[in-house]
């Protein structure tokens, strides 16, 4: 069992499943639960097939050194994308993901189409549920394949199994939490999860990409350099959040000072 891989896949999946769950919940409440769950399970099955076929095929046919280089680069791209979003949200330059708002918006769209609660399967409900779970899950499937297949030494199945297990546990937890509260999962700290996953993906990506270039990390146990990379990225990200916050406040203060001086000038011009 690869715990670091399972944890990363768990966290990444938790974020995406929370987003997918919101749409599944809307379809369940506004159309019916049969259509909603059928779409969700069909999408989960599609994702499982993608992971099983593509993951194993890649590991079997591509040499591990080349594979790590490509996977490392893809993980850096993914990681930087997630990290950038999380940093922008922490610094207040981007609004936080609001599951409640997405829930209301999708509900209004479905009602506008005139869809009503009916016991039988509704193709629109199945399609909407399937699409949302598949689209959100595709990124997770990609992470599971790339992450899982990079850590294995011979067959590659062990790493993929660890990552898939992490993703499955996250999915089950989200479904269980959703079934209990039957409302959008607004309490899940999505931004923090995205931030942690962004750091992990970037750290692993850098580590593997450098190894793909035959670089040897300067420690007796090279894997021990991954936490060092994570700590470095965490520190720099913290600094970037502080800088963006300061920058935003500085801009607001400047704009406010400009507005005050313009008002004062206008008042002076009005006075005789």
């Amino acid at each position, binding site marked *: 069992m690869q715990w670091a891989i399972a944890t990363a896949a768990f966290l990444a999946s938790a974020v995406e499943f929370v987003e997918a769950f919101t749409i599944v919940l809307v379809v369940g409440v506004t159309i019916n639960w049969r259509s909603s769950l059928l779409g969700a399970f069909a999408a989960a099955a599609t994702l499982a097939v993608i992971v099983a076929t593509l993951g194993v095929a890649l590991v079997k046919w591509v040499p591990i050194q080349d594979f790590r280089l490509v996977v490392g680069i893809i993980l850096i*791209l*993914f990681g930087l*994308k997630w990290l*950038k979003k999380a940093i922008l949200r922490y610094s207040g330059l981007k609004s936080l993901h609001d599951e409640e708002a997405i829930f209301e918006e999708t509900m209004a769209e479905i009602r506008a189409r005139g869809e009503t609660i009916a016991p039988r399967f509704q193709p629109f409900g199945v399609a909407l549920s399937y699409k949302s779970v598949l689209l959100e899950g595709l990124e997770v499937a990609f992470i599971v394949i790339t992450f899982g297949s990079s850590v294995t030494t011979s067959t590659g199945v062990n790493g993929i199994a660890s990552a898939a297990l992490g993703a499955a546990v996250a999915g089950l937890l989200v479904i269980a939490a959703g079934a209990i509260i039957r409302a959008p999962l607004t309490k899940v700290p999505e931004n923090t999860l995205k931030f942690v996953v962004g750091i992990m993906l970037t750290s692993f990506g*850098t580590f593997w990409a450098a190894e793909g270039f035959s670089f040897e990390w300067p420690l007796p146990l090279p894997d021990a350099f991954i936490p060092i990379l994570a700590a470095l990225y965490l520190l720099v990200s913290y600094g970037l959040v502080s800088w963006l916050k300061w920058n935003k406040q500085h801009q607001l203060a400047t704009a406010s000072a400009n507005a005050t001086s313009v008002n004062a000038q206008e008042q002076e011009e009005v006075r005789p």
Partner: protein
Amino acid sequence: MKVIKAIYNFIVGDMIILVGVVIAVLALALINNVSALSPLRPATGFLLVAAVLVTLTATLYREARGKR
């Protein structure tokens, strides 16, 4: 074109990140294949870390400037 855009949005969705990482990878490939640049080979990993940090800072800088 739509397919390429969809793949781009799925994997990265940010031109600065994409260009930054591609430049870093090309530079590292050169270092590993050109014998004149071989003295830099022991620093490949650290150069990659620096490139990642510069790329992240650059994309955030552009966002901060864009909000003005």
